[in-house]
C-alpha cells in the first residue's frame, strides 16, 4: 500500500542515484522506495530509504505562538535519538508555543567509560539537551539494549500516567514501523508510545481508572510525529519539516550529548589532536565550545541539509505524521439535514 501511494508524489526522485551510484533498476520498473541523498561527509543520520506518501506536506515556520497552551512529549529510548533525528522540529514546535518535555526511556548504560559512568553522564546529557531545546527532562532508566526483556505493558502504564499528568497533545517518537531497526529499545519505545497515546485518552475511565481516581485527567493526543532512524531505516514519510531556523539549536542539543552520539566533544577532541601535531583547522575556532559547535554543524548536519535541498529548504527533517482523526459525525448530520424528508 505504501508503495502504491508513493508513486504519484515521488516521480521527481525516481532517477536519483543512491550514494553516488547509478541505479541498475530496469527501465520498466517503478521503484517503491527511494534512496535518501547523503552528504559528502556520510554522517548517516538520515535513513537509507524513504517511501513517500502522495499527500506529503512541507511544514514551515508559523508566525506567533499558534501552539500556545499545547504540550509536546518528545520520547526517546536514548539520549541521542531525538537530538540527532528530530531536534530541529522539537525546537520549532516549542518556539511556536508548545510546552515541551524530553522523556528518555532507557538508562543509556552502554555508553560511557563504565556502566555507572554511562548512566550518570547520559542522565546529565538528557537534561542538558532538553535545556538546549527549551524542554523539561524526564528519564525512566530501563536497561539499555535490553528493553525487549521489559514488559511493554508496564512501560505503557507509566507513559499513560505521564501523558495524563502532563496533558500531552502531541508526541514525537521513533517510528515503531521503522524497518530494519537493529535496536530493540527503539522498537519497544515506539510501540509503547503508540499504544499509550490512545489509551491515555479513552473515555469512561476504563484504562487505569486508579489514575483518574488520583485526580489525573484523560489526555487527548491528536498528533504524532514518527521520526526515522538511520542508517538502516526504511520509512514512509508524509511530512517534511523546515528546520532551517532551528539548526543551531539542534546543533547545541547534540553538543550537549557528551556520552553518546557522534557530536558531544568531538570538535574539541579533534582540535586537541591537531594541536598535538602542530596544526589547526580554522573552522574549529579558538576554543572548545566553538570547535564542538562547528564540528557538529559542518560534519553531522549535512545529511539534513541534503534532505532539505530536495524541497528547496536549507535544512529539513522527515516524518510519518499522524494527525487528528476526522470526525465523521458532522458529515452524517449534514447529510441527514439535507436529505431527510417528511414522513
Amino acid at each position: 500500500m505504501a508503495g502504491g501511494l508513493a508513486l504519484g508524489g515521488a516521480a521527481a526522485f525516481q532517477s536519483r542515484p543512491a550514494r553516488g551510484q547509478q541505479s541498475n533498476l530496469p527501465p520498466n520498473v517503478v521503484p517503491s522506495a527511494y534512496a535518501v541523498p547523503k552528504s559528502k561527509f556520510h554522517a548517516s543520520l538520515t535513513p537509507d530509504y524513504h517511501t513517500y506518501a502522495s499527500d506529503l506536506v512541507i511544514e514551515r515556520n508559523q508566525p506567533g505562538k499558534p501552539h500556545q497552551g499545547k504540550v509536546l512529549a518528545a520520547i526517546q529510548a536514548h539520549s541521542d535519538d531525538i537530538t540527532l533525528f528530530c531536534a530541529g522540529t522539537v525546537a520549532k514546535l516549542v518556539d511556536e508555543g508548545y510546552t515541551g518535555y524530553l522523556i528518555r526511556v532507557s538508562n543509556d548504560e552502554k555508553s560511557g567509560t563504565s556502566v555507572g559512568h554511562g548512566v550518570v553522564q547520559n542522565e546529565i546529557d538528557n537534561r542538558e539537551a532538553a535545556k538546549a531545546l527549551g524542554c523539561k527532562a524526564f528519564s525512566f532508566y530501563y536497561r539499555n539494549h535490553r528493553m525487549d526483556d521489559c514488559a511493554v505493558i508496564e512501560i505503557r502504564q507509566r507513559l499513560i500516567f505521564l501523558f495524563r499528568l502532563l496533558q500531552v497533545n502531541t508526541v514525537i517518537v521513533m517510528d515503531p514501523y521503522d524497518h530494519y531497526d537493529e535496536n530493540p529499545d527503539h522498537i519497544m519505545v515506539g510501540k509503547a508510545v503508540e499504544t499509550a497515546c490512545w489509551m491515555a485518552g479513552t473515555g469512561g475511565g476504563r484504562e487505569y481508572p486508579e489514575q483518574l481516581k488520583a485526580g489525573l485527567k484523560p489526555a487527548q493526543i491528536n498528533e504524532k510525529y514518527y521520526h526515522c532512524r538511520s542508517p538502516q531505516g526504511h520509512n514512509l514519510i508524509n511530512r517534511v519539516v523546515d528546520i532551517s531556523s532551528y539548526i543551531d539549536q539542534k546543533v547545541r542539543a547534540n553538543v550537549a550529548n557528551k556520552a553518546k552520539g557522534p557530536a558531544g566533544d568531538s570538535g574539541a577532541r579533534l582540535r586537541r589532536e591537531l594541536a598535538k601535531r602542530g596544526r589547526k583547522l580554522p573552522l574549529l575556532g579558538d576554543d572548545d565550545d566553538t570547535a564542538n559547535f562547528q564540528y557538529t554543524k559542518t560534519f553531522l548536519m549535512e545529511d539534513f541539509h541534503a534532505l532539505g535541498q530536495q524541497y528547496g529548504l536549507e535544512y529539513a527533517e522527515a516524518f510519518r505524521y499522524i494527525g487528528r482523526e476526522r470526525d465523521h459525525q458532522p458529515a452524517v448530520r449534514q447529510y441527514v439535514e439535507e436529505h431527510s424528508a417528511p414522513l
Partner: protein
Amino acid sequence: MKRRGIFKIASAGVRPALAEGEQVVVMKAEPGQPHRGKVFAAVHAHLDDIPCHGSGLSAKLMSEGYTGYIVRTSNDEKYGGRSTAENILSNEQEHIRMGAAVGFKDVFDFYYQNHEMSGISYLDLRGRLILIFRLLKVDTVISFNPWGHGEEDPDHWVTGRAVEEACWMAGMPNDFHEHLLAGFQPHTVTERYYLCARPGQPYNRVVDIGPHIEKKIDAIVECKSRGNGNRGSIVRAELARQGKKLPLLGNDDRTADRAYARQFLLDGDRECGRQHGLEFAEKFYYIDQRRPAALKADEYIRNNAVSL
C-alpha cells in the same frame, strides 16, 4: 510489640507455623479509635477472597478508626454460571455492593483475566498497586501470603507477591518516580496481614471477629457469583419446588442467605475461635515493619556526641 487488646497465648491443639520463640497473638477488640488516621488496603484477587478470609478483620480495623479500601485484581470471569461477559459484570457489581456492605471507603477493580494472572506482567500490577498505596497513604495491607504453601490459584500468589513487593517499593523515591511529579510522595506500607487462604498456611495472629460477625455475613451474602452468598435462597427455592421448607432459612431470600452463611459458611472461623476461647476468629500471618521511634544508632549518637 504488645498493645492493649492483644494477648499472647500458647497455641492449644493447633500447630501454627511460627518462628522459634514466636507465639500466636490473639487480637481482641480495642476500645476507642486507636487507629484513627490510619489507612488499610485489602487486596484480593476474587470477589469472595476477603469476604471469606478477612472481612472480619477489615470490619474490626474500620471500627477501631482505620479507613479501609478494597482492591480486586482479577475480573472473576470464570464464576457466575453465565457467559464469560455476564460473569464479569455480575462479579463487578457484587464487588461494589460487598465493599459498601463492609464499609470500605472505595472499591478498585483491575480486571486482570481470571486464572490467567501468572501470565500477566506483574510489574504492571505492582506499578498500579504502588500508585494506590501512595495515593491513599496506605499503612497496612491485608492480602494473600505469597509464600503460603498449597496455593493452587495463580491469581492468589501473583497478587500476594505483587502486594508484598509494592509495600516497600512504594516507599522508594526512585521507583515509579513519575508519581512524585504528580505530587504523590513515597509511602511505605509497614504492616501486613497475610490471609490463611489454604489449609496449613502459617499464622501468628488470631483475630477475634465475634463483634463483627454480622458484617462478615453482610459481605458473604453479597458474593453470589462466587462464594455461595446466595446459596440459602437457592436451597429455599429448590425445597419449595419439592413442596418443602427449612425453618432455618426463614421466609425470604435475604433471611435465607444470611442464615445459610451463618450456619454453614463460618465453620472455619467458628473452629478457630473455639480453639482460642472465642466465638469466631480469623487467622493471619502478621508482619510489622514499623520503625521504632528512635533507632539505636540515633540514640547512641545523641548520647555520645561531644563538642569538637
